[in-house]
């Protein structure tokens, strides 16, 4: 009896291994393969010589990158753009969630949510196609509207300052709905008796929002902000890449677009991998740090 039980559980375990096998093989090749491929960051990589035949140059690629005139600007742009996105990414969804929570009409609430939520599911190719058209300095509808008020055309995507404003605004447009829904659910989970008690004590709606709703949402706000720290070096490749042009590189070029141009366009594989490795390592530190903090302070776990 005992031995058949063991044999049976052994058979089940080997079935489990077999089930995992396809995913393991693919992850091994396409996730761990590239991790191993990082070695070319330390090589003067020549595709014809391959991973084993190229010359080792130690930290040569890193030195080269840090001596490039653009690198510091790219790093600065990346941090600035992603920090600004992080800040508006808290304020706007939070405000919208609070406003939506005050709406009593369920149909209106649902309609607004569905509309605001839509751009989240569209690709940056489509959204930037729309943006390029409506922001066109010659015949875009936004500049046409400005003309009505006697304002001269603004070249939104060709001017460094305006480009960043467009990045932030269109980021809100696309991402807003996602966090709003999370915050809204957090508001709905706040104990209703707190509001009743406050109401009996004579607290108005403003006071209730300030003293009950906002503190009640603090854990989820802290959690989402902490988790977003892991993305500090992700300033939004899809968005920037589909909107930018050489004339705004000064203010719009970010690490990922920089890697793309060095690696894929100029085919300096070693240098581009070195920049990518720098980004991966910094991200790893931030992601582990943020997950650790989320675990400590909010008891959040992914598994």
């Amino acid at each position: 009896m005992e031995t058949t039980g063991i044999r049976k559980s052994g058979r089940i375990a080997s079935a489990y291994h077999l089930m995992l096998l396809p995913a393991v093989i693919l992850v091994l090749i396409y996730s761990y393969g590239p991790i191993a491929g990082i070695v070319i960051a330390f090589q003067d990589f020549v595709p014809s010589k391959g991973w084993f035949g190229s010359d080792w140059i130690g930290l040569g690629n890193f030195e080269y990158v840090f001596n490039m005139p653009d690198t510091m600007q790219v790093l600065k742009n990346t941090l600035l753009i992603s920090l600004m996105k992080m800040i508006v990414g808290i304020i706007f969804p939070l405000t919208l969630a609070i406003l939506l929570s005050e709406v009593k009409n369920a149909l209106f609430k649902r309609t607004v949510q569905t509309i605001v939520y839509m751009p989240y599911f569209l690709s940056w190719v489509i959204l930037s196609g729309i943006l390029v058209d409506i922001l066109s300095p010659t015949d875009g509808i936004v500049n046409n509207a400005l003309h009505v008020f006697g304002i001269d055309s603004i070249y939104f995507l060709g001017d460094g300052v305006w480009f960043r404003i467009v990045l932030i605004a269109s980021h809100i447009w696309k991402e807003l709905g996602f966090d709003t829904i999370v915050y809204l659910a957090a508001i709905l989970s706040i104990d209703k008796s707190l509001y009743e008690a406050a109401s009996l004590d004579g607290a108005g709606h403003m006071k209730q929002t300030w003293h009950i709703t906002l503190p009640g949402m603090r854990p989820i706000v802290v959690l989402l902000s902490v988790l977003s720290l892991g993305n500090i070096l992700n300033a939004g490749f899809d968005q920037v890449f589909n909107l930018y042009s050489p004339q705004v590189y000064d203010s719009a070029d970010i690490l990922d677009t920089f890697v793309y141009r060095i690696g894929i366009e100029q085919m300096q594989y070693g240098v581009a991998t070195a920049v990518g490795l720098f980004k991966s390592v910094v991200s790893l530190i931030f992601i582990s740090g943020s997950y650790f903090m989320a675990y400590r302070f909010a008891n959040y776990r992914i598994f």
Partner: protein
Amino acid sequence: MIERRTPSRMLFLYGNYVILTLFAITCLFPILHMAAMSLSSNSAVTAGWVTVWPVDFNLDTYKYIVRNQSFLYSAVNSFERLSLGVSLGLALTILAAYPLSKSNLKFRSRTVYSWFFVITMIFNGGLIPTFMVVKETGLMDSIGALVIPSAVNVFNIVLMLNFFRSQPIELEESAQIDGAGAWRTLWSIYLPISKPSLATIALFTIIFHWNAWFDGLIYMNSPTHYPLQTYLRTVIVSHDLSNVNASDFSMIQNISSRTVLAAQLFVSMLPVLCIYPFLQKYFVHGLVLGSVKG
């Protein structure tokens, strides 16, 4: 709750409706504008008369794009990618999530496998090494490059395993007492009850594959192999150099590179616009539960 209708409260409530309405309109406006442009005559678009309603309504741009070879090729590529990518993704997710949903007691190697997958969520080789691996494995310029490297999605596996884990343990035990092995338990007991979760994952995978454009750009050499979004990007980038065939241009008054692009963008959005309302509910439950549950 006791609702006090003070004047300031009424003002806030009405103001709130106005603000939210304006906000929703702002979000929707660019998309409606594109749709309206695609249905308007070129002269009305150039004159700036089109806002959210078509002016000189006509379907010429749509007649043009359904005869546009590049657009059709890329749409076919996208559908091919979708069917392969979704079936591959679902199969891999189910097969990996089921064993990982078992307790450490039942499946001792679980922890090792979990770490094996989780590490890829927090660290990756970056663009160039990934590009090299895809190239070395001979996938360049084939549909495989679009579906195989991205086939295993660890987030989906986590989603699915949490669902499997939330099922009562008696389900599995009674199946095994009846003599069912692991494969049979998964196939006849677990799969039938996980249809809602599978549908959610399928919808997300559909949107992922429909929206993906970057892999098409770097892995496909010939434009005839581009998926739809990659093709659209090339049209947007070459926007100023009119990509509309000159002879067609003079023949048909209503189309221009601008209205054609608007129509192509709108058509490409439609599948997503049909699907996404069904995903809204999931987020309220799934995401919040996932983050609060711990």
